[in-house]
């Protein structure tokens, strides 16, 4: 606890700060729909649903130092599960069935894909991710009779929870709860023995092997964790658009989560959260101010962030600017030296 023995200060202890910050932010997210327009609520909901897949990229990036372009596979799986079961071939729209089902399917698919994707690293891993995503995309695209091809599946009605049909606002709160739950779960996972050993793998592969870490198995599990996050978010994303199309499987879509994670900063646990909000917000602003320059703006921002602050991202920049204030809220909590 060496670095954290800041006793005798006015501030409450370490863990309480964090708890307070979480509660305050959650409370803001919970009451904000009552005060803002429907569109802003949708936007916040979008940000919330972007957080879990971005966390998936973040886990692979910050723990394994790999770039995970294949998140869209799992978003797509979740979305199409929702679209088939609650839309096209109506079976059920009960979230308590759809979410676990998507979780199970994502885990299964991630397990199988992980067997061969996670054996490679670096550029090869990234390209393999894109290749597999393309394969899924073309499968969905070509199975026109079932998936509707490029037209997708439209007019998916809102889901129900405990048998109660949800309105758009209800869906917002479900998204909030799911996303928050996943954030807390990720926090736990990032402080687990599992992730410490993953960091060992990215730190030095040979050393990791020589201390008996089952490299391939653990990498695969990390891939599964990432995929499961995206799979759950995929279901809710499908409902939030009331539409699913094959572009959910496009690798460009998966690349957005990489960009969001980089923008947020992969050195920080709050990075993916910040990244999701900044990315979606940025998209909103850019499309308003320079509708034609979306690619240039996002490209320059990501490139500049990588060159200047690397893994620190926006969170790191903000922390530098307002270091003292944020320290109190413990937003600077790093995944990289988490005490013990």
């Amino acid at each position, binding site marked *: 606890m060496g670095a954290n023995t800041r006793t005798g200060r006015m501030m409450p202890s370490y863990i309480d700060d964090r708890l307070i910050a979480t509660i305050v932010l959650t409370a803001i997210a919970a009451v904000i729909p009552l005060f803002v327009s429907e569109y802003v609520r949708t936007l916040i909901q979008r940000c919330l649903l972007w957080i879990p897949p971005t966390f998936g990229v973040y886990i692979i990036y910050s723990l394994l130092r790999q770039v995970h372009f294949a998140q869209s596979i799992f978003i797509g799986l979740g979305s199409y599960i929702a679209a088939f079961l609650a839309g096209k071939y109506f079976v059920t729209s009960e979230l308590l069935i759809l979410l676990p089902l998507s979780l199970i399917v994502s885990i299964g698919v991630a397990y199988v894909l992980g067997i061969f994707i996670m054996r490679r690293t670096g550029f090869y891993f990234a390209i393999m991710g894109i290749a597999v995503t393309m394969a899924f995309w073309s499968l969905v695209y070509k199975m026109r009779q079932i998936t509707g091809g490029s037209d997708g599946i439209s007019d998916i009605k809102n889901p129900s929870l405990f048998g109660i049909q949800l309105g758009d606002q209800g869906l917002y709160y479900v998204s909030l709860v799911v996303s928050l739950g996943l954030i807390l779960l990720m926090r736990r996972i990032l402080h687990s023995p599992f992730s*410490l050993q993953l*960091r060992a793998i990215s730190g030095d592969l*040979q*050393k990791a*092997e020589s*201390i*008996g*870490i*089952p490299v391939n198995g653990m990498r695969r599990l990390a891939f599964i964790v990432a995929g499961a996050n995206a799979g759950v978010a995929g279901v809710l994303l499908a409902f939030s658009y009331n539409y699913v199309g094959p572009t959910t499987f496009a690798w460009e879509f998966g690349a957005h989560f990489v960009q969001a994670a980089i923008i947020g900063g992969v050195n920080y646990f709050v990075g993916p959260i910040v990244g999701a909000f900044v990315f979606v917000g940025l998209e909103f602003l850019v499309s308003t101010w320079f509708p034609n320059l979306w690619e240039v703006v996002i490209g320059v921002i990501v490139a500049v962030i990588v060159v200047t602050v690397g893994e620190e991202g926006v969170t790191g920049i903000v922390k530098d600017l307002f270091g003292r204030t944020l320290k109190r809220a413990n937003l600077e909590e790093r995944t990289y030296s988490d005490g013990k």
Partner: protein
Amino acid sequence: MGNNQQPVLLAAEKLRKFYGEVRAANDISLEIAQGQVLTLVGANGAGKSTFLNLLTGLVKPDRGEIRLLGKRITGLAPEQRAKMGIVKTFQLEHVFGDMTVFDHVRTACLSAAGKHYSMFKDISTETEINGQTEQLLELFDLARVSQSLVKNLGHGFKKVIDIATSFAMKPKILLVDEPTSGVGEEEKYHIMELMMNQIRANNLAAIIVEHDLNLVKDLSNETIVMHEGEFIARGAPGDVFGQDKVVEVLVGRGF
């Protein structure tokens, strides 16, 4: 420290590894018993590191067999062998630079306890592991830097951290690749002492690759000289270093 009454712990039989023309290991055989400490000397490129890597499984042999306590382990992956007790420290820097010293050692403790896939448990609640880690840090005199990032520490520290991490694996046999390369004269002895104390205290077998011949004499009473992938001499350091061919190999090439 040779204790030949003990049963054979690790046995290598006719290990061979050629890199094209280069003979890194040419039908090497070796047996080592519990508590036995061997030193391995030889010029650069004699195949010492390759030999250790063959034992740990980082390099796959072209042919030959490796047995641990009579059980064939030739085809096993490095991490499986590490679990069985064959643990190696590295010559060059192989540390997890972005971790704190505490985490670095703790990783190995967790791995030894087989807690790889423990995802939903907060690491701070692993009191047993944390206790072990603190104990190890004490033993290796690392407690005062336990919260520093490994990459910010000096070379000597990294060596000690590497060794401490290896001990966390509760090894049966320790393969030590040049523990003191690139370390100052004074630190050298300190590191060696720390390590040898632990090896003796746990009655481990060890193969130590070392360049400093004076150090070799202190370390163990049995040494092997390696040249072009073969063992050319074996015995007490004093005797071995007197032999002509050894002098030619070690000193002649040295200058």
